[in-house]
């Protein structure tokens, strides 16, 4: 029953190659101090788990609500499962929405919540009972079917919300920061569960979050937004290792941004660092390679992609002094000052062996290049 959603929905497939979600040229201007979304294009494949990440106010929730139909774009088209829903009212779009505050109805039992969703999805009455049991089993709430929301814990309430969204086998699942109100352990457990359920059902999912770890761990792809614009959309590992700009880089983790000059681009990259040193990097070590020689670019390096070695070791690119260390159990973080570099570099290592004041050699294992910007938000 839950395997072929598109059949269950009776949706018209208008294109042969069907995308789970398509946003085309979406524009929306929120007057009075709000930003503008201008010409946003976004696609998610059928069955894909796509995260929308960004700080508060970047437009991710707004975009999500447009997909749900709770907001109307000024222009552009929205297609879910191949069907154009731009002019379709929210209650006819066959989507499931999980709210941040779980939005449960205090006057209904858990079972009634699911029945409500099924009723308006026009599921035949004979099937309702079995579907309720099935979806409650899916979220491990079978024993709570006749409880009211006030009798449930936070995590259980969110599961009801998820079950309610999934019960009618929607074409798409939309989640608006569903786990922000839960404590850390519960959050991690729910992340695994949500992902597992989504994969099992194969429902296309659009997941809005401001928590980068959540996005990195759960998603098939991540879309980073800033001020209404899409900055980068890529798989978690690529977007982490090869961010297109410093904003995206910083959003997903600590990053070292080193202004540098590109000297040459061949099989190896010749880069001159601010301290004058020239280094050579193999081309495949560069996530986003620079475009042209003689250009000023920002070199972005993750702290865990800088290798520390002995100064005597010849393989290092630059040498520096350990300024401070911070031990956090599974790793150690060092701030290393390199002469001639504007800021200290952050390096993360598994072993805790460097002392402050010691000289070390640094080698850049994986880097990415971005256009130099004067101001990074």
């Amino acid at each position, binding site marked *: 029953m839950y395997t072929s959603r598109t059949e269950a929905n009776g949706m018209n497939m208008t294109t042969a190659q069907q995308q789970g979600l398509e946003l085309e040229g979406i524009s929306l201007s929120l007057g009075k101090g709000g930003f503008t979304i201008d010409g946003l294009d976004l696609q998610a494949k059928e069955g894909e788990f796509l995260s929308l990440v960004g700080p508060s106010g970047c437009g991710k929730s707004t975009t999500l609500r447009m997909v749900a*139909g*709770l*907001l*109307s774009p000024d222009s552009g088209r929205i297609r879910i499962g191949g069907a154009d829903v731009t002019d379709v*009212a*929210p209650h006819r779009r066959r989507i499931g929405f999980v709210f941040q505050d779980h939005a449960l109805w205090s006057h209904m039992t858990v079972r009634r919540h699911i029945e409500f969703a099924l009723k308006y999805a026009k599921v035949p009455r004979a099937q309702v009972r079995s579907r309720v049991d099935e979806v409650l089993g899916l979220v491990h709430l079978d024993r709570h079917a006749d409880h009211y929301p006030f009798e449930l814990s936070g995590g259980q309430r969110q599961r009801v919300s998820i079950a309610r969204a999934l019960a009618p086998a929607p074409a798409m699942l939309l989640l608006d920061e569903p786990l922000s109100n839960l404590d850390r352990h519960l959050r991690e457990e729910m992340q695994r569960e949500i992902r597992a359920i989504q994969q099992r059902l194969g429902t296309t999912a659009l997941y809005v979050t401001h928590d980068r770890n959540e996005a990195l761990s759960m998603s098939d792809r991540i879309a980073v937004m800033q001020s209404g614009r899409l900055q980068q959309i890529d798989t978690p590992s690529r977007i982490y290792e090869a961010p297109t700009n410093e904003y995206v880089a910083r959003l997903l983790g600590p990053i070292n941004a080193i202004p540098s000059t590109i000297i040459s681009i061949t099989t190896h990259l010749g880069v001159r660092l601010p301290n004058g040193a020239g280094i050579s990097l193999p081309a495949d070590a560069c996530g986003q390679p620079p475009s042209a020689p003689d250009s000023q670019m920002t070199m972005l390096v993750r702290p865990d992609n800088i290798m520390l070695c002995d100064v005597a070791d010849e393989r290092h690119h630059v040498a520096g002094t350990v300024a401070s260390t911070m031990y956090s159990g599974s790793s150690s973080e060092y701030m290393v000052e390199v002469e001639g570099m504007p800021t200290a570099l952050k390096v993360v290592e598994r072993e805790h062996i460097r002392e402050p004041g010691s000289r070390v050699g640094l080698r850049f294992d994986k880097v990415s290049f971005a256009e130099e910007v004067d101001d990074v938000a």
Partner: protein
Amino acid sequence: MRPGPFTYLTVAAAAAGIVFILLPLFIMAATAFNPTAITFPPEGFTLKWFGAVLEDARFVRAIIISLVLAVFSAAVSSAIGLIVALAIRQSKSRIAEHLSTLMLSPLFIPGALLGIALYQGANALFGTVPLGVLLVGHILLTLPFPVRALMAGLARIPTSLEEAAFLSGAGFLGTVWHVLLPQLRLHLFAGSAMAFTMSWNDFDLSLFLSGTRVQTLPVEIYGRLQLGADPSITALSLIVALVSVAGVIILDRTIGVAEFAGMERQGPRRTPGGRQRSAPSTPSTPSTPSHPQPDSGVLTP
């Protein structure tokens, strides 16, 4: 969300509701300018009826009586209300709880009932209904409003403020004067304003307790209506209404009508009309009476 038919229907019903409750006011106001009779639409425009009002001795006397009653009741019930509210705050005894319920009872008891009771009582004691009883009736009627307003206001002041003052050396009176009263200024004003208006507008109670010479304004208007209506009544009514409307506008500018009537949901208070409140923003822990329950709104009449 695009508006659907249900939305349009709802908005239409709401608009109809507003029209419904404001219609008599406007119609009546318009007829006050009608030179001929109390009809609508007016057949002309004249201000002569307003002049007639001022020349009518009975009207003028009624205005004065209502005014005096309103001011007096507001003052007395505010004073009593302040004392009672303070006392209830200090002691958490059951008596205090019951007292507050008792104090608020005139809100739910129809005014006519109070009037009948006091009428019978006065007749038994004095054989007649002296002006004093009318005053007492008005005080009883208006008592709930300052009490409720001040109780709500006091509930918003955390006890730590009093304790701080006390530890600094202020006595009880000092604390009240220097700490509590300044915080309560708005509530005191709101409560008195409400008391004034309730007394000014009262008909049910006053009908029973008015004598042939002593009539409050609404009773006087009603009496005239019985005798046959001429537009001086509507002129007078317009004046009376304008006083009330002015009161509402003042109230909205200072406190904000919505918060006043307990219509706001619990949450950060909004500053109405851009004015700053004198009361500090207290943490939401004290269960303030602006929780959505009709009889615990701050000042629902």
